[in-house]
């Protein structure tokens, strides 16, 4: 519904005695989310060296990317840093075609976009990112992808523009 349609619909409802209370357009809740030491190290390596690092569980050997402090299944603290990637295998994917509100901006997020779960070589967890969908028929589970790094990196997962198919 366009804003005009919405407003006329609401005037109609007001006549029927039913109101809708809207949150203020600019209403937002600001947050300063701590990345934590492990995550900060990962972002730093991406930003400075275009490199992925993970952490290996001393008990089960699982490699977590991005790294974190505790292996959930083993409930132990992890310390061993491991360099992984940068290539990755597409574990699963979808193409998002429905519009929805991005909670960070309050605006609709542009669709469609390719949304993939990548297993970065050497890691045992999945890493989410975008992939291009100019030729959808090419996208298959199990194919190799690689990251496209941005020139200007700020220390965020968005330092990677997207993952693209490795042409063999």
């Amino acid at each position, binding site marked *: 519904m366009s804003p005009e349609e919405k407003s006329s619909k609401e005037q109609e409802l007001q006549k029927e005695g039913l109101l809708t209370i809207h949150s203020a357009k600019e209403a937002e809740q600001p947050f300063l989310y701590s990345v934590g030491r492990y*995550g900060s190290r990962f972002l730093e390596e991406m930003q400075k060296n275009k490199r992925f690092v993970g952490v290996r569980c001393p008990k089960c050997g699982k490699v977590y990317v991005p790294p974190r402090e505790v292996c*959930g299944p083993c409930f132990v603290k992890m310390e061993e840093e491991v360099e992984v990637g940068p290539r990755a295998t597409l574990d*699963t*994917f979808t193409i998002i075609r429905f519009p*929805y509100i991005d909670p960070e901006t309050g605006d609709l*997020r542009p669709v469609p976009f390719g*949304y993939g*779960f990548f297993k970065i070589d050497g890691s045992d967890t999945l890493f989410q*990112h975008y992939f291009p969908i100019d030729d959808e028929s090419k996208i298959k589970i199990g194919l190799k992808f690689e990251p496209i790094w941005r020139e200007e990196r700020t220390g965020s997962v968005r330092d990677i523009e997207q993952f693209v198919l490795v042409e063999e």
Partner: protein
Amino acid sequence: MARRSAIVATGQTHHRSIRRDVNGQEIINEAVTRCLEDGDLTINDIDAVVIGNMDHFEGINYVDCWSVDGCGGFMKPTIKLTTGGTTGSTLAIAGHHLVASGAFEKVLVIGWEKNSESDTTGAINTAFCPIWDRPFFAGAIAGLSVTAQSYADRFGATPKDAARVAVRDRRHACLNPYAHLRKEVTIEEVLASPMLADPVCLLDMCPRTDGACAVVYAAEGLAEKMCPQPAWVHGVASRHMFSYVSDADFAGGSLFSMERAAQELYKKTGIKEPLKEIDVIEMYQPFSWAGLIWTEDMGLCKKGEGPKLVWDGVTDLGGELPINPSGGVVSTNCIGATGLIRAAEVALQIQGKAGERQVPDVNLAIATGFGGCLWTDMLAYGKNKPE
């Protein structure tokens, strides 16, 4: 004083896409009033109130405190539980524990959501890690679609197989006066509906709903006196095993948390052949594909055989093990209530009060919850008091 407990009363709203005539507290009150009426109770009979929803759908902090006018918690112990999509099943489990522990004799449990009050996907996205998950994630539809993609890749299941599940649940919903979407659809219509996120189409997916559900749990000794047929809790199990979306191993699309919860529940309740022993399942199945995959994860058939089970009509009303006679979640999804509606519906089945959607002779029934980061809750209810 560990003791048995049972659901003795249930109530739910007539679920709709938007309820402009009532605010949040009032929609809660509607379900509570119907539940108390069902049990021939007044609010004075209630010892404690358990309530839950997902905060960011309505943007209300301390919902337990806010809800008093509607939930009846004035000068009573009132507590809030929230675990995302599993909220409703989490509440159903809590009601049982509060009574089983000996803390209370009669507990009112309420799940609700007014999903019309925000953008569902936008709000769901806030559930996920702001650093790693949130920038990319596109809510439940995204998380479920990648599961379906993985399953299809491994077993060759098709959108048509999934559509068969949607057709089943939407047909069942026509028999349920409380269901939100009550319109039969054909397989062709499901396949032709707009693609939301490959391979999931609009009619494969649950709607967003305004609605509430309430149940009353009572302790043994009291439950038998309060109603002719209590729905006894036989066992509960929860697995909320991931903290990040990327922890999920999508290989094959299996729901690991459900496999683990089912194993525990079956062990606790002595279920050896689930397909034979369970009489009806209300599954928190938010999209059609889950109706294929999760039947396997519950051990109703072998991996990859979910489609056959569904096409053979085993899970239809009238089949060997009907799933979602209420129409399930693809017909109604007021998220914080959804898991509790599953429990209320199996209670109705056990009580023989399910009307046109009644499954004959329900002795043992399962309700499930799904949500969070691919998490599962499971509850077993029975006609007989458990050993």
